[in-house]
């Protein structure tokens, strides 16, 4: 199977602290990868680098055959729109938009009609079981529902990669498990590569592979 992510000798320093220290690894297409490590080990920074949200100081990142380190901010934005979906611990939904609008958010900068936009969002909402909640606003939803909206939003452009940063961190274990199952289902049904950052060993065990980080270095990989 071919690689969707190739990382080599990646380094990122914040102030005097080397957050990512000479990290190299690959991710295969369709893989469900978990990244684990204690707080401050560099997990979120690594995710940011892979998504082009942070600039690397040194090294190379190739995602979906695109070299991120040489891309401009605008090119990276377009890259994220079509290649990367994001799911965060705190859901990060726009409070003034309802479910269908939040799901359609990545389509807003595109010049497509609202009808088409919301039709596509409705289809994705169906895939994550949110068809009854399309008109609701984030503050009217449970934590699990909000996270499903976030997952649906990450799927709207059918990206190659889904980055999930502690997606179960703000959920009870049962709801967290349902969200992981949803990600796992998307991975198996749609073949989308999922990179999951988690503290939770039980969730990490459901992945195809685990990378463990400590002080910005990969200390274990299986």
């Amino acid at each position, binding site marked *: 199977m071919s690689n969707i992510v190739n990382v080599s000798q990646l380094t990122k320093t914040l102030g005097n602290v080397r957050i990512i220290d000479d990290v190299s690894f690959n991710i295969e297409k369709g893989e469900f990868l978990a990244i684990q490590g204690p707080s401050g080990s560099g997990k979120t920074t690594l995710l940011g680098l892979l998504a082009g949200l942070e600039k690397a100081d040194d090294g190379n990142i190739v995602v979906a055959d695109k070299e991120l380190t040489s891309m401009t*901010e605008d090119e990276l*934005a377009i890259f*994220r729109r*079509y290649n990367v979906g994001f799911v965060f*611990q705190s859901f990060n939904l*726009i409070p003034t938009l309802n479910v269908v*609008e939040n799901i359609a958010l990545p389509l807003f900068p595109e010049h497509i009609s609202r009808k088409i936009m919301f039709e596509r969002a409705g289809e994705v909402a169906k895939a994550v079981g949110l068809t009854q909640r399309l008109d609701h606003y984030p503050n009217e939803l449970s934590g699990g529902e909000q996270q499903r909206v976030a997952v649906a939003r990450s799927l709207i452009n059918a990206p190659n990669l889904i980055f999930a940063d502690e997606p179960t961190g703000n959920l009870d274990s049962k709801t967290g498990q349902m969200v992981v199952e949803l990600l796992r289902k998307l991975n198996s049904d749609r073949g989308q590569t999922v990179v999951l950052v988690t503290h939770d060993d039980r969730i990490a065990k459901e992945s195809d592979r685990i990378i463990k980080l400590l002080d910005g270095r990969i200390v274990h990989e299986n």
Partner: protein
Amino acid sequence: MFYYAIKELLKRKKLYLLNVMTIGLVALMIITLNSLANAYREAARLPFQDIQGNIIIQRNGNVPETTSGVLLSCSLAPIPQDLVSQISKNDGVKDISTALALWVFDPDNFKRVSGVDFHDNFGKTLAAKLIDGSIPSTDNQILADKTYAQKYSLAVGRETTISGRQFTVAGIVGTAGNEVMASDIYLNLGAAQEMAYQSENLQQVETFNKTDVNIIFVNVSQPDLKTVTQDIKVIVTGSGMNAGKTPLGQTIGGYNIYTPESFENQISTIFRISDKLTWVISLVLFVGAAIIVSRNSLRIILERRREFGIMKTVGFKNRDIQIEVNLETFIQILAGFFAGLILSSIAVVVLSHTTVSIAIPWELTAYPHFLLSNPSEANVTQMHPLPIGLEPLYVFASLAIIMAVGLVTSFLSVWQINKFKPMEVMRHE
């Protein structure tokens, strides 16, 4: 993006209300203050409507020692025809009218008598106020003011005596007592000049020639008003114009030149100031609004930084977010502007129901104080509805200033948004 902007503004309307209110207030102040200043400027022209001119020239005269017979309306001095000719040569002068205002102290009553050329502009304006009869066709005919005619039972065809001479009433005019040059009797200018020329009492006070007048009405197109007024000032202060002595040995008086500006100064000092300080007021409003709106907008942007972080994360370019925020600013600007425009329209309608009082200078409606039962009756005031309207110029000016506020706000907002690093925003949860 427009849809998103509308949703944002409606869902968080309390946050944006301050901006809309500030912008509305700026529009209201700019439109209303300037329209009000303009209305007072227009009001200052209203007394000139009665004379079909916009410059009035008179000359200061001397006070007579006795009040009997025919005198020049106090305290006016004769103006030679030579001056009328010189002024009429000015290119900016559209037309010129002259009159002779007299006080006639007859044994049975006092009357104000005006000699008028019924074929010049002033005379035609007077003729338009005819309510009975016709304008005098001979020097023996007169027009009587309606109030005076009622008081002395004069009607068309009746005879009356002025300074010992018999005149027939040719017509009755309905002039208001507070008009410029309001008189009891109007007769041909030549007849009035002859009457003045023959008056011994008058000739003792001033040297009056047969063709002299004591009031000139000059009609000038509005753009030329300042230049022509200045030219006339040069003429009347020129050599020979003020030289000489009266028969009593007093110095011949200088000239008074009245323009709408003369009335502007007295009807509203505040709006005269505001008119002159338009640019300063506009600048203060612009700076004040820019500070309030920008600060509020930046505060909102800071509150929404996570939202912008999310947008960048899901693939919005900086430019997309800038467009979104600028669109929101533009909608607030328009909402505020239209709110201000509606409020201004209401203010203009309310103000149009108020009146403005314009005190007419004594010399333009002179009446002997000692003949009045109440001295305050001598103070002639015209009351006019305030001629205020919604001026398109000020509407556009307010829009331009508000747009400038919007541009400053957009610039600062864009600068603030560009500083956000999505990972920093997302990291601090």
